[in-house]
């Protein structure tokens, strides 16, 4: 009978599928992905449902993937190298000798999707919005590099004209920064600096309303694509913009962003021919794809680091030797080869490689003999007397768990110490990390722009992202004084290298590996290039059968 029922079920399903025009007859010939290619539509898996598509309100990778198709900043993404600034709304720019004052010349043919010209005042309005003390932009600290921005955000001054951004004419934007910032162009690619269309924002609720529904009721963008349809938790469709200044270069007719939260569902959808690109590959499938379909799986390096934080306010991690000992006894290669298996690289420093001109010292590594000696020096020879209750905290996730267990075993074997592991649900974990309610905590950090500053400024005393209790005067001096006043780029990077050396020697963190982006890609899609910041500009992509 169950067999009968199963057979019945199959025959019902078969009947259904026979009735449907799309499937049985055509399935073997043409998949959804094939059909989309004919129409010039890219279908991509996009992880979680986006929180929104207002560049000043949201944070996150899925949101960025969509917004970057709809809005363009002063500087655009280069098709293959994140170190290179590509002209966006700004067709050219100048800066003074020490990179603290910038002038951007806006192109005259830059238009919003409703036909209005994109003018310098729109950037002034947008940055005012980002920094407005009543708005509450999550990424407002990205803009604090603008002179007077900090005072405006904190409410010390209510006059935005005191902030260093001015439209001297409709197509000229002048920006004054707090100090020399040679990497400013790279920062400008981040969506926190993107413009919004002021009349639209005003029409639907005003500059400072977080719950402004303009993104759903009247989206106006200036990017290569315009919003076509957004059905939450189902699909977000964009289509080629007829008003974009570089529209002749845009080859795709549209993009469908599918919010697929489950990695295995996304994998099945790709295999069934319903997607061209996935946002991830389930870790247990990576090796299989590498063996069987090497033309479809891609593993690109990212400017992202996986690391452990030590709470230096709690013994025994108030002793630098203990921190170093634990860091030196993590066999990173073994973690990468046996657990993550996704082509990650051993993190020999905190800042990932790839930023032009920056070569951080390779100080974090595997040296169990030295680790044992350091631990003995710190008063715990062979792990004797090592305090109980030390735990690795991580947010609930199989991979984090496996890595924590591996570290736990390595510390037990190499150092003779017993360390527990503790998983917490995401928000609880964030809370524990930010209130220093942990001893060791797993973390990740993704660079926002192509400069070591995005990895090093967070370790200054009292920085909101430090979360280790670590403080070092020399480090603070290098990062907050010297690096921000040095006008020579090479010398500045040397200062940052020196700072990173201190960070690695002091070891409030143990870098473990540098991330990779693993995804499945239909080989017919071209110009989907590896990018360290994971920004893939759609305007260059096309299909080739």
């Amino acid at each position, binding site marked *: 009978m169950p067999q009968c*029922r199963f057979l019945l*079920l199959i025959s019902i399903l078969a009947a259904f599928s026979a009735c449907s025009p799309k499937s049985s007859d055509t399935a073997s010939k043409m998949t959804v992905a094939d059909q989309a290619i004919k129409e010039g539509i890219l279908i991509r898996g996009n992880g979680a449902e986006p929180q929104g598509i207002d560049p000043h309100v949201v944070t996150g990778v899925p949101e960025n993937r969509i917004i970057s198709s709809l809005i363009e900043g002063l500087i655009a993404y280069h098709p293959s190298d994140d170190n290179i600034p590509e002209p966006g709304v700004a067709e050219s720019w100048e800066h003074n000798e020490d990179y603290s004052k910038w002038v951007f010349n806006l192109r005259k043919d830059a238009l919003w999707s409703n036909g209005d010209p994109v003018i310098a005042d729109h950037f002034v309005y947008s940055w005012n919005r980002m920094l407005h003390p009543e708005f509450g932009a*999550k990424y407002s600290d990205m803009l604090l590099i603008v002179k007077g921005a900090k005072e405006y*955000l904190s409410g010390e001054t209510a006059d935005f004209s005191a902030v260093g951004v001015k439209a001297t004419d409709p197509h000229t934007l002048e920006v004054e920064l707090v100090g020399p910032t040679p990497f400013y162009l790279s920062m400008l690619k981040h969506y926190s600096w993107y413009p919004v269309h002021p009349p639209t924002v005003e029409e639907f609720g005003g500059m400072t309303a977080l719950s402004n529904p303009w993104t759903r009721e009247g989206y106006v963008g200036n990017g290569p694509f315009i919003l076509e349809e957004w059905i939450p938790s189902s699909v977000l469709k964009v289509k080629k913009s007829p008003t974009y200044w570089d529209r002749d270069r845009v080859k795709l007719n549209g993009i469908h962003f599918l919010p*697929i939260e489950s990695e295995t569902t996304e994998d099945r*959808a790709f295999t069934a021919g319903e997607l061209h690109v996935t946002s991830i590959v389930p870790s247990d499938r990576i090796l299989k794809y590498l063996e069987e379909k090497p033309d479809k799986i891609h593993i690109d390096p990212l400017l992202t680091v996986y690391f452990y934080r030590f709470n230096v306010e709690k013994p025994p991690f108030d002793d630098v030797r203990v921190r170093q000992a634990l860091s030196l006894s993590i066999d990173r290669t073994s973690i990468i080869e046996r657990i993550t298996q996704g082509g990650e690289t051993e993190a020999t420093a905190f800042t990932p490689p790839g930023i032009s001109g920056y070569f951080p010292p390779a100080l974090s590594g595997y040296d169990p003999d030295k680790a044992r000696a350091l631990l003995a020096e710190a008063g715990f020879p062979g792990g004797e007397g090592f305090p109980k209750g030390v735990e690795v905290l991580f947010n609930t996730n199989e991979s984090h768990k496996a890595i924590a267990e591996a570290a736990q075993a390595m510390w037990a074997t190499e150092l003779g110490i017993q360390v527990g592991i503790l998983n917490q649900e995401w*928000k*609880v974990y964030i809370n524990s990390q930010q209130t220093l309610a942990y001893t060791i905590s797993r973390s*990740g950090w993704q660079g926002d722009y192509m400069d070591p500053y995005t990895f090093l400024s967070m370790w200054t005393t009292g920085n909101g992202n430090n979360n280790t209790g670590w403080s070092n005067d020399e480090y603070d001096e290098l990062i907050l004084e010297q690096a921000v006043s040095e006008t020579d780029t090479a010398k500045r990077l040397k200062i940052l290298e020196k700072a990173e050396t201190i960070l690695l020697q002091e070891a409030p963190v143990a870098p473990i590996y540098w991330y990779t982006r693993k995804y499945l890609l239909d080989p017919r899609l071209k110009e989907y290039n590896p990018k360290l910041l994971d920004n893939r500009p759609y305007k260059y992509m096309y299909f080739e059968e």
Partner: protein
Amino acid sequence: MLRFILSRVLQAIPVLFIIVTLTFFMVRLAPGGPFDQERAMSAASKEAINRQYGLDKPLLSQYTAYLSDLLKGDMGPSLSSPGRQVNEIIFSKLPNSIQLGLFSLAFALIVGIPAGMLASLKQNSWLDYIPMTGAMVGICLPTFVIGPILSTVFGPWLGWLPVIGWSGGIEFKVLPTATLGLAYAAYVARLTRGGMLEILGQDFIRTAWAKGASTFSVVFKHALRGGLIPVVSFLGPALAGLISGSFVVETIFVIPGLGQEFVNSALNRDYFLVLGTVLFYAALIIVMNILVDIAVVWLNPRSKFE
């Protein structure tokens, strides 16, 4: 009957009030807030966001403000999707959840009732053992096992059915419906069998047999009505559960339903959306139970509206 319904509705009001109050304070007790993220935001921004949503006010005044909005039918804004209202989220996703729920329920009844009846009529034979073993397996196999199996077989392997999506033709509905409905079908089969066995053993059935009534007449005219009472009692909570969405099935098949909101709102500490979904679910269960009580009285002449 009108008095019965009225009294049940009146009873529901304090129940809902207690649920709202408990949920309101419980979700606030959970560590971590809606705007906590890995990358800390500036203190000024955090204060501004809290002000925007009135979260800077004392908890008690937030509570009274929420209740007064609720009485006006406004369940507040979503904190994790700025620009969206809880009302809008629930009512935009509800139709999909109702559709999926009803399809699955229909599937469960069509498969479950005949199987249960057959098993009860042929008690202790292979026609009883095999479907009941199958039902036990169906109950035990969770949707996150059945879903991927069905999806892999009919998607990538056979290429017959789409593996993601819901809106569109009937082909999009088949796999999610079967996945979600299978476990319910198994329950329905077991409950039908149990209910039927109890009725079939009663005097009035024996009398019917003795009077020479045909099997068809005994089963369908006399036994089925009483035998289905356990199934009907089960239907209320089952339908409420089905309609309020299934997180797993929605995630596996990328269906824009309420189940994902229900789970994600809690994970995101989206206070108002948590309250909205809990309240909606609670109201749904209450309504379904009232309907079931009415149906049971209608089916069972011995019970009365009380």
